[in-house]
């Protein structure tokens, strides 16, 4: 057996390791670069970021939106499963806030029989906020959630294992576990509709135009005009989730 000198061993060994590392990582590195280049090309083409504007002052709590959503997206009809729903905020004379949402508001709201104690009441439609900095994508252990190039968060039902981490992570309670598919489910702005230039079903049926959907990047879109004119807020801004659903006419206490 030929005796290998220690110095030769170190030099040849190091060279071998370097060659192996380059050999393995080179193609991956190049591929990543290629994907990045393709993505940036696509972005340069025409960037669309879908956003949602909700005028809480206009909402009359008729529940047509929540019903249409269930039909369009085949959401189970039981009260606990909703992609979008309406909450009624009742502010008492003692500034105490009560919130109710019977069956997600689909059947309307019962008349309040203690009006003398009420300062005011108003409706707030809720849905997935399509956060730019979304907790649900971050916590998913299998990478089943992703954001499309147009800013919509989609659940890949084939990958989702139904662990419910995302349901707990969502600060807006916008998700539920589908009882028969055993996967997480939530509003995706009717992605099948918006990719055909149609409005989401809730926007389509809203009789008072309380829900406006549009491209946040397009300077001439209705939603951009509204955001320029109106003073809006997002839900729970302190969490830094950067929602793309903007509310007009909500006050402190709406969460």
């Amino acid at each position: 057996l030929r005796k290998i000198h220690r110095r030769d061993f170190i030099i040849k060994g190091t060279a071998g390791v370097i060659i192996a590392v380059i050999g393995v990582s080179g193609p991956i590195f190049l591929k990543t670069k290629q994907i990045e280049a393709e993505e940036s090309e696509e972005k340069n083409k025409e960037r669309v970021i879908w956003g949602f504007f909700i005028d809480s002052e206009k909402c009359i709590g008729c529940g047509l939106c929540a019903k249409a959503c269930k039909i369009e997206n085949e959401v189970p009809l039981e009260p606990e499963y909703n992609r979008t729903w309406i909450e009624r905020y009742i502010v008492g004379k003692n500034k105490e806030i009560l919130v109710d949402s019977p069956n997600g508001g689909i059947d309307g709201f019962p008349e309040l029989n203690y009006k003398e104690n009420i300062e005011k009441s108003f409706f707030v439609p809720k849905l997935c906020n399509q956060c730019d900095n979304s907790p649900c994508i971050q916590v998913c252990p299998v990478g089943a959630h992703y954001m499309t190039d147009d800013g919509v968060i989609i659940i890949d039902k084939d990958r989702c294992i139904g662990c419910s981490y995302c349901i707990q992570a969502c600060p807006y309670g916008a998700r539920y576990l589908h009882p028969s598919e055993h996967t997480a489910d939530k509003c995706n702005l009717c992605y099948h509709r918006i990719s055909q230039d149609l409005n989401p079903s809730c926007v389509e049926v809203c009789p008072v135009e309380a829900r406006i959907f549009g491209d946040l990047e397009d300077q001439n879109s209705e939603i951009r005009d509204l955001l320029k004119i109106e003073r809006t807020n997002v839900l729970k801004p302190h969490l830094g989730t950067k929602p793309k659903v903007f509310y007009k006419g909500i006050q402190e206490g709406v969460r």
Partner: protein
Amino acid sequence: VFIIGFYGIARIYSPSSFGDLVELKEISLEEEKTRSLKYAGSSDCLDCHIEFFEWNNSMHQNISCESCHKAGIFHGEINNNGPEVKVEKCRSCHNNSISITPSMTKVEKEFCEICHILDIKPDVEIAPQVDSKNHSRNLECIICHDMHYPRIRLDLPPFIPHLTEDKPDCRLCHSEGGDFTIFTEKHIERPNNICRICHNVSAGNKEEIPHILRGRFDCLFCHDTESIDPLDVDHPAIPIGEDSCLNCHAAGGIKPRSSEHTQTFVRKDLCRECHGIFGIYPFSDDHVERDVETCLKCHKRNEV
């Protein structure tokens, strides 16, 4: 050998997309995009139901067809996978006259109240809030209101300036080559028998009745002294009967009430129509000589 063998078997049985996040994302997106639509959108409905083409000029213009009717996929309770429906079966429910729209079904008052019940919302701009006991004496809404055109707007559409009872075919006079106003370009495709759904016959240029008169014959049934818009105390003392109202009043336009004046003011020349020497709240003696154009200089909208 074991490692190479394992790798080979794994390659054979793994789907091509395994580990490739970009491809997985594309597959999932494609699935999402190709889901079936349930709501068609109003423009699709209007392709066939042509008689509602002016719905988007009515007070209900913002309300999509499918807000009140069922989603498009439930159209006639059949879909693409459903049984073939023969025409005879359609005609058993649908009117034969205009198009394929079913005859009017009863719209319950409760349905209107989803949006219009008093106290839902104080903002009358969005949906007028109605106290049904005082407004309609608990009558069904459809007695007075057409759901598609709850109140025809002032500027649309123009009146027919002549009687039409002996003139069933509008096109005889109003087509190209005729002596009278011809159908405008967007009207050419429309069938002849739907003109009067929107165009009311003007029986004079006095104060106008703010609703269509189709199907309503007895004015005082609603407008007696204690219900909807009762006769004004200053109303000229003329014999009041079923026909006499229409001698002076035409359907489809303004009425002299403060909430309506924002619309009326668009046409300043109309002041004298209602407030002339003999009208309601007539011009006072020192005003008689004044020009109508100057009314708005002193009288603000919300004061009238």
